[in-house]
């Protein structure tokens, strides 16, 4: 559904169900340069299993009007205003990559709005290499290539996509090519600059890919240690794009955590 946030169109996929009071809500936040469709299978599952689903397109991504926001706290604040627009008081937040930082910041600063957080492929600090940032700043296609290659396990280009007939590299590149100039840079810089000093008190699950070269599991260690009681699931064969590379294992982890 298309909501209005800050006077602009803000899209959230609801898995073809209306958002209803009385149902628990799970809110999905995508990674840099991506959109709600990256959670396609997982968000659809929850929508058809009794949950309100809000799989958002951050400003400047997918169907939400730009410009892109430039800091993680601004993104987290935008999420709370989107929840207001959808009349959702509290939600569990499932973030991927950049979306994990938004989830953490939201949970720390808006604890009353957050039930649980699931962090899929995360790192803290989420430092982005100078080469990647520079290419994104120049709107060079090199940035799309870096994003695509580092977002998948090394075996991915050899095939065997769990989603029959789809090629993950091509899909990622096609998505990135639709971005307006500067959006990927804004996202990457926001990740790179994010500094977290708060406290997350809600239950947290880390879902990590053992073959993740963008945010290797070890890079999330300090964040796990900062969140009391945080649990983690490491999926052996997956890279950074766990929702696509390991859709069932990712969904199973989410179901177990959110039920």
């Amino acid at each position, binding site marked *: 559904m298309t909501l209005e946030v800050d006077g602009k169109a803000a899209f959230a996929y609801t898995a*073809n169900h209306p958002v209803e009071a009385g149902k628990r809500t799970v809110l999905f936040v995508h990674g840099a340069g991506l959109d709600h469709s990256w959670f396609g299978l997982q968000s659809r599952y929850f929508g058809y299993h009794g949950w309100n689903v809000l799989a958002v397109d951050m400003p400047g991504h997918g169907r939400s009007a730009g410009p892109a926001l430039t800091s993680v706290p601004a993104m987290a604040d935008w999420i709370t205003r989107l929840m207001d627009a959808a009349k959702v008081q509290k939600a569990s937040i499932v973030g991927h990559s950049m979306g994990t930082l938004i989830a953490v910041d939201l949970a720390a600063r808006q604890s009353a709005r957050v039930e649980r957080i699931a962090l899929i492929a995360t790192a803290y600090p989420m430092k982005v290499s100078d080469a990647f940032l520079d290419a994104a700043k120049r709107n060079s296609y090199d940035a799309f290539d870096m994003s695509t290659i580092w977002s998948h396990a090394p075996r991915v280009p050899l*095939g065997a996509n769990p989603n*029959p*007939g789809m090629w993950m590299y*091509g899909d990622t590149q096609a998505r990135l090519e639709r971005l307006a100039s500067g959006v990927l840079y804004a996202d990457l810089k926001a990740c790179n600059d994010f500094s977290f000093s708060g406290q997350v008190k809600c239950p947290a699950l880390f879902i990590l890919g053992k073959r993740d070269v963008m945010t290797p599991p070890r890079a999330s260690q300090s964040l796990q240690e900062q969140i009391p009681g945080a649990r983690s699931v490491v999926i052996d064969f997956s890279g950074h794009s766990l929702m696509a590379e390991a859709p069932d294992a990712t969904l199973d982890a989410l179901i177990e955590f959110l039920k």
Partner: protein
Amino acid sequence: MPIYQTTSYVFRDTEHAASLFNMERAGHVYSRISNPTVAVLEERMAALEGGVGAIATASGQAALHLAIATLMDAGSHIVASGSLYGGSHNLLAYTLKRFGIETTFVSPRVPENFRKAIRPNTRLLFGETLGNPGLDVLDVPAVSAIAHEAKLPLLVDATFTTPYLMKPFALGADLLYHSATKFLGGHGVAIAGVLVDSGRFDWEASGKFATLTAPYAGFHDMDFEEESGTRAFLLRARREGLRDFGACMAPMTAFQILQGVETLHLRMPRHVDSTRKIVAFLSRHSAVERVIYPELPGHPDYELAKKLLPLGCGAVFSFEIKGGRGAGKAFIESLRIFSHLANVGDAKSLVIHPATTTHYRMSDADLRKAGITAGTVRLSIGLEDPQDLIDDLDRALAISQK
């Protein structure tokens, strides 16, 4: 690559089954919709073409039909090149017309012809990367620009070029398909097609494609673009087109085409090198009226071919034999190495007389438009020793002129 010679896949439990049917989990349900062996071919073809994904089909014709049926309803209109494989021409000119989809055919040599034929109900521009049989080189950058200005996609049949000779998506095409029966398979053992989506066309922004951007009652009111963004076209094509029309690829066929694709980069240079030698031989031969190959300076697309097809213009071409129909008949029947049959893109060299076979349903006027005369002979150059082929042609040409 294992051959999953199976129709269906055991579910873990009822919940798993329901989730697969409702697209909440990834996997296979029934081999008409998807199959692990077929999926490997689809993914590799998408990778070779630089697309988001692909759907393998029962034939190239099935791929063309799947593309059209996914994009439009009765009352829609297509602007197509007039230089098409006869089977594609039949589908567009006669069969789809019965179902309310009309096609205007234009000469592909002037890209502006496509623009002039666009109507409010046009939903697709379509051509072959190398036209059949005159080898018109489709100006993919120019035609795709015209398509995009009109918020329409360009579909190309890339059978004659394969991803080795041309990457249509890099030139602006939005969708492409192959008769994988031809060079992709390469061995003449399996009928097959594959439809690839670049994922670059913005269906939502176009506003002309309700099949992809409006709720579909046939799948829980799914709005395919909203659901899957860059994957919308392939999702509908698979979830409706394969499900309902059912023109899927068999797993054994996928395995056979995969064997061919593995050597495509080795076979295509050989096909092209031999073709160049034979084109040069025929161009000098006294029994030959003219040779139609875009690398010859006299071909209307000579300059365009240099730009779009620097690695070669494929291995299928036509020439006109002196003496018309009778000479053509004598020539074909005198060949020993060339197989006389209705196919192209095989490891073995092939020959056919288009006016009486592949294009026999076309009127004389349409034949002329497609550049075919009674003396036109089409060759598909295989992987044999090119000198053996030249010797065979030389002997048959001599007999044809007696």
